[in-house]
Structure formats: C-alpha cells, structure tokens
C-alpha cells in the first residue's frame, strides 16, 4: 500500500469511503470553484513557516480565517484577521445548514483545514463527513486525512512547503 495514502496515524482509517488525494492544482480548483470558502487554522500554524504560508494563501484567495485553540493571539500579534473558535465549536456550527457563516453571508461550502492537532481534526472531519452534506472539506496539512473529502498526501516538510507554495 502506498504509504502516502495511509492516514498519518494509521489507525484513523474509518471505513470504505476514501478521500480524494489532491495536488495543489486540484486544491486550487476546489477553492476557485467555492462560493463561500472558510480557512480553519490550528495551533501548529503559530510557528513559521506555516504562519507565513497561511497568511499568503488567505490573502491570495481572500479566505476568511477561523483560528482554533489559542492560535488567535499569534495571528492577532502579526495583524492577520481571524475569528477565534474552539475546533469543536466551529465544527458544530459548520454542520448546521442554517448557520450563516463567519461573515453572516451564508453557510460555507468549502472548509480548508490546516494546523489542527491531527486526531481531533480527524474527529471533526468525521463529524462533517457524516453530518454536513452541504459542504466539502479539504486538508492541506502534510498529513493524509482519511475523514476529509479531499486531502494532501503524507509528505516530508520540503515537499509540503513546495505544495503550499503552489497554492
């Protein structure tokens, strides 16, 4: 089996449904096609170089950012706008089709995850897989996420940074 396509934590395999393995090109296509995307960013993005990547990607695609855990503080310090939520709180809101999104413009149709602790992200993605048919999930971590609709493969840092550069 291709090690890039086994969940980063191998036992996170959930069932027969597999995510789409995406390249930066496919990911860009998904973002481009989305009407109301949302960028959910976890505490791993408090450090460089991910912080810089997140900033550039959000700016390029005009993505509203939700920061989880205490990531908000770092982002605020470097003047990146974000809305803070607990990861379970934002997932809870995303599964509600009536929620109007972080900007009050309607529920999001694509949620891009990066930097959230792997196993709690995996649980949140599972919630959205089962209970949020109105949106798609895309993960751009260096870890393959089995519960996402679309995910980057497992990669080393160099390859991952190359992927993020292309987004």
């Amino acid at each position, binding site marked *: 089996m291709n090690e890039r396509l086994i969940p*980063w*934590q*191998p*036992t996170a395999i*959930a*069932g*027969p*449904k597999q995510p789409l393995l995406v390249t930066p090109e496919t990911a860009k296509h998904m973002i481009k096609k989305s009407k109301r995307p949302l960028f959910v960013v*976890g*505490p791993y993005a408090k450090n460089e170089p991910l912080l810089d990547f997140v900033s550039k990607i959000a700016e390029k695609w005009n993505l509203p950012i939700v920061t*989880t*855990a*205490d990531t*908000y*503080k770092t982002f*605020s*310090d470097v003047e990146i706008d974000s809305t*803070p939520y*607990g*990861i*379970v*709180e934002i*997932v*809870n*809101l995303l599964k509600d089709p009536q*929620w109007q999104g972080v900007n009050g413009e309607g529920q999001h149709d694509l949620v891009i995850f990066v930097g*959230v*602790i*792997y*196993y*709690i992200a995996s*649980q*949140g993605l*599972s*919630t959205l*897989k*089962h*209970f949020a*048919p109105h949106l798609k999930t895309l993960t751009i971590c260096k870890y393959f996420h089995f519960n996402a609709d679309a995910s980057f493969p497992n990669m080393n840092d160099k390859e991952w940074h190359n992927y993020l550069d292309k987004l």
Partner: protein
Amino acid sequence: MTPNSIRPKDLEDNFWKNRGIDINIGDIVENTSSPTDNEKIEMGPTPKPSVTDLRSWDMKLLKRYPPFYAPFCDMCCLCTFGKCDLTGKKGACGIDIEAQQGRFALLTCCIGAAAHSAHSRHLLEYLIHKVGPDFPIDFGNNIDIEAPIIRTVIGKIPKTLGDLREAMSYMEEENLHLLSACHTGQEGNHLDFESKALHAGLMDHVGMEIGDVSQINALNLPKGDADVPLAELGIGVVDREKPVVLCIGHNVAPGAGIIDYVEDNELEDQIEICGICCTSIDMTRYSNRAKVIGPISKQLKFLRSGVADVVVVDEQCIRSDVLEEANKTGAALIATTDKMCLGLEDRTDDTVDNIMGDILSDRIKGALVLDPEKVGELAVKLSQEISTKRQKHKILPTDRELQEEASKCTNCGWCVRVCPNNLPIMDAVSSAGEGDFQKAEELYDHDTCYTCGRCEGECPENIKIMSLMAKVGQNNLDKQKFKIRVGRGPIQDVEVRRVGAPIVLGDIPGVIAFVGCTNYPNGSDEVAKMAEEFLERNYIVVTSGCGAMSIGEYKDKDGKSLYEKYSGDFDARGLVNLGSCVSNSHIPGVAIKIANIFAKKQLEGNFEVIADYILNRVGACGMAWGPYSQKAAAIASGVNRWGIPVVLGPHGSKYRRLYLGATEDKERWKLNDMRTGKVIDGEPAPEHLLYAAENREEATVALAKLCIRPTDTNKGRQIKLSHYIDMRKKYFGEIPQDIYKFIRTEKDIPITYKKEVLEILENNKWEPREIPMEPSILDFPKNKVGD
C-alpha cells in the same frame, strides 16, 4: 418503582381530584440522623429511578446541549449482518450513524459503570465478610450527610455496610437494563440512547459512592479530614535495596492485605510497598508505609525497570501484557480478582508454601489468588525470596548497550506515526544511537511519553524503546521524588456551611475538579499548571486519581509541590485530594450537599430538583485532561446528569460524543423563575455540558467560563467575569467577544474592564435582563401557572 408506577409528580396537577386509583407515594423513611429521631421524611418523586423515570430531565438537558457526534469509525461491527457502513445510509438492522454514536456512548458508559460497580460490589462483600454487615457507616461529628448520592437516588440513609447492599442491587439491575438496550434491535433513537447513557453515568456514581463509603468506614481511611498527611510519590522514592512489592490497579483489598501482613509481622522496615494508579492512592489512605509510584503512565517504564520483585494486580487500567512484562524481569505476578485472571492457575485454596515453591521453581509464571489476606502473606514472602536471587540492578541494558541498539534506527518514522501524540520518538532514538540521551529525557519528563509502547511494537528493528525510557528514568532518580496529599474522602458538612453561600453567590469564582487518566496531549505538568492558575485565582481545586498524582509530580519555581503550597481545605485556594477513582463520587456529592445544607433542598427521591439546583447555581466544572478509559466517560456522563459541565482534553473527542450548548438559539436558554412564576431570558450558563479543548490555553479559558451560573450576584458575576476576561486576554490577547451574553445588568461589568465591555455591549445592541430569583429548567408546578 416499575416503569408503569404512578408517581406523585404525575398527579401534581389534580392530585386531590383523582378518584378510583391507588396512590403510592413511596416509602416514608425514618430520619434517625436528625435531632428529632421520630421526624419523618416524605419521599420525593423518583426514589430508585428506572431507566425512563428521569428521561424528562435528560431531554431538557439534551435540548439545551444537543449531542455533538464525531464518529470514530464509519462502520458498525457488532452483529453478523455486518460489517455495515453507516456513511449516509442505515445499517442492515436499520440503525443510522447518529443512533450508533449514541449507542456507543451508552455502551462506553455501561462498561465504565460496570467497572466501578463490580469493584465496589467486590469490596463491599469482602468488607462485610471481614467486619460484618452491621458495621456502622459513621463519618464522625463533622459529616451527617454520609452518602448524598445514595440518599438522593435511593431515597434512604445507609446506616451500616449491610444497608449498602440495597443500593448495590438496585444499580446492578439498572446496569443490566441499560446494557441490554445496546443489543441489536433495541433502542433506535439517539436521544434515548443518550438518556440511557446519562442514567448509566448516574449509576456509575452510585457505584463509586458505595465503594468509597465502604472502604472509608471498614478500613478506617480518612473521613474528610482536611489536614491529612503527605505521602511519598515518584519512581525515585522506592528503596531499591529492599524487597519491593508493587500493586497495580484500583481495588485496595489485596494492598491492604499486604500492609496488614507486613505490620502484623513487624516487617515495616524490611519491605517496600508501592503502587501504581488508584490502588496506590487508597493504600496511602490505609497506611503511611505505602508509596505512590505514580499514575498509569508510569506502568510500563516501572515494570521494565525491574525494581519490583513481586507484581500484584487487582483490576482496571492494568496492561493486558503485565504478566509478560513482569516475567521478562524475573518478577513474580499475583492476580487477585476475577476481573483479571491472566490465564493463571487458581491457587486460592492452596498453601502459601506450595504456591511459592511452584513460582520459585519456575513451574508456574504466577498465580491467581482470590483471598486478599493470603495475597498479603504470599506477596511479602515471595518478595523476600526473589529479591535475593534476582540481579535487579542489572535488568535494564547499560547506556552503551542501549546506544548500540538505538544505532540500528533507520529513521523510518513509523514510531512517530503510531504514537498517539506523534511525539518525536525517532529523533530521541536516533540521538540515543549517537550517545545523546537528552531528547529521550525530554520525552520522559512529565510523562510527555506515557509509555503506551505502540512505538516499540511497530519498530521494524525491534528497538526496545520502552527500555530506553525506563533507563532514562533510572539515570535520573533524584528528579523523580515528589509529595502527594493523602486522599481525604468526602467534604465535611461544616465546610459546605462555610463555602456554600460564596459558591452559589459567586464570591468564590468556582470549583474545578481535575480528574481522569493520563492520556495527556503534552505531558502531565499541564494539569498542574492549570490547577496552579485556578488556585492562585481563589478557586477551590479538587482532584482525584491520576490527576491528583500528576499534580503532585509538579514543582513550582521554589521547588515546592502544590500540595505543600496550598492547604487541603475545601475553601478558596484549597487543593483537595479526594482520593481514588471511586472518590470521584464526592464531587457531585459536595454539590448535592450544597443544595441540601445551604438551600435546604430535600434529597430523598428528589433527583431532578437537586440536579436542577446544581446546574443553575453551583459553579463547579470538571476537567479530565487525559481521559482514556470507559470509566472516565461514565464519570463525566454522571456529573453531566447532575448538572456539572466537564472539559476534556483533545483525546476526549474520541469518545465520539460531546454535549455542546446551542448558544445561537436564545429560546433554549430561557429560564423558569420558580419564585416569580415568570419565564425570563437566560444566558448560556453553563455554556456547554461536555466540551473538548485542543490545548491547555483553550481549556483554561473554557473552565473559567463554565463556572458562570444564572444565580451569581452582581458582585459574584463581576468576579467570575474578571477571571474569564483576564484569562482570555492572557491566552488569546483579546477581551472575549461573547462577554455581552453574560452581562445581565451594568452592575455585572467588572470595573477594571468597564470601558471595553461597554463597547462590546453597544456593538451587540445589548439590553439589560432580569436576574432570576430561582432559575430552573424544570416545568412550573401546574397549580402555579398564572399565579
């Protein structure tokens, strides 16, 4: 009561107008503990509630706090129709993914409740056998409400050990009904699964209370004394020159048997008796001779160190491969309960000499001995024999040998991928291969690596990574010496009288309970740091089990443990170690006592009124930062049903279910003011009932927020909001944007933050709200409507 019984509450509307029916108002119980011995207590509506008797309460909770599901697996594998994939479709039995998650929550809670309760049943019968069924339950002059959970749920006051059998039998029957609902083709609705899971949680607390009340009384453990002594804690406190007996698990009976034998034979200075996990906490409650190695995170590293000559296992949270690990070091193993027989021959009826002979001659690998007294004699004699023959100081490889083995590392990285926390194990092993053990030490410190051993099982080079961790610990024994306050058991009534009002009014900003296991995301010192922060802020901090041990393993900048720094009083800035797992029952126990002592609420058969009081008035919150077991899930569900919210660490998301408040829907937060008969706008307080935080910073702020209650006075609310804002600013760098939800009138605004808060109020078009006199989520009594 049977499910079809008519209860007084069913008749409250037209009670006196009903004719032609038989009315059973329940037992009239004689309250012999009150000053007037002949005073009668009228039973409340739900003594011994069946699975469905408290369903209406559960549905009220679940409306406010709907289950949030995060399936761990897409499939159901429980019957031979399956496996069934439940992704967007139903299984062959008709169940959908939502109901399946509720079913799993129920199953988890049933397992947890069964573990505590079977432990308690064993302990109860053993102690009755030892001291008799008429042995009195007496906590002394400072505690009149000896068993608040049993009083409320069963509706009776247990006076003797024998009296506890009634509560035990009741909850065993309930557990049976609950487990049966998990069978294929039974319950099909997720909310009803949740109601049953909450019932299982309640049964768990009944079981735990039976266990601790039994052992406190029959074994004369501390009865709520705040000034209990400190006990030694840590891998470094064991005298390795002596024969060492190690107990692992939760049931104190065999440990007490060992201590008795040592004392009866005046061997106190010749034998080291130590323990891992809750059994060690209870051993220190029984005798100051016992030492605590630490929580379950110490298990594999201590076993591998080979220090123990005899390993005695009882029940719960013990590694399934404990026999294999003990045998690797030449230690003998004695299994002592029916829960964990490990394939060993039952030698209960054999003589100690015969069993010893067979173990010492390697004819058997260990023995199952179900008599705690015999275990005492066998363990001590075996340790004396074995310690002279084993070269235990040479069991672990030398640093050079470890370096040589670690140098085989190919940097494949699988150790990191299978680690529950993806710790940098590969780096530590690679560095060790070059003779640098620093990175391994960093993983060892604070149990950042809790030695589950998955990395070692995965390593294609068979590098003994756990032995590396054990060796690192052995090389730094001086760093592994700590103190823990002995578990005191329940909170005294006199303390409740002192702090009941400040807690309910908000002057004491909250009670935080650090409980649970050691599945920490980032080491044990995070628990202690959280406890320290709340202690410094005048909260009451209580703890138990592994959490209590983790707190003890932390030293402040002056080298003092928090137990040395803070008193054991149940008061502001008090750090109260309740005891072991079963002592967790004292957490809802003290909340119940506040309702009874401070607010004069009748307990017997009155669950809903008491839980409603706690939910709306008692600013308590649980924290299980490293939850791993089914027991932890049951404990959390139990306190949730009592109205106490719980914050979990990130691994808690794997329980598949949280209870998150529907904060966007104001209708769900309306309160019935029982004093005025009015329905008034409420607030999301407490905001969630079961929440998982991603890191310590988020958890700390969540704990402060979850202590807010509708009955806080203006002053109390200011104090609580000051802490909430302080911590939010500290960890998030901002004033919380939801602060307007918790301001009822301008008098609630903390003076220090007035300008900033007023700005937020204006932005959110805030308007003042009425403060409820007697807030409740229960329905108004029908004869009060329109009053």
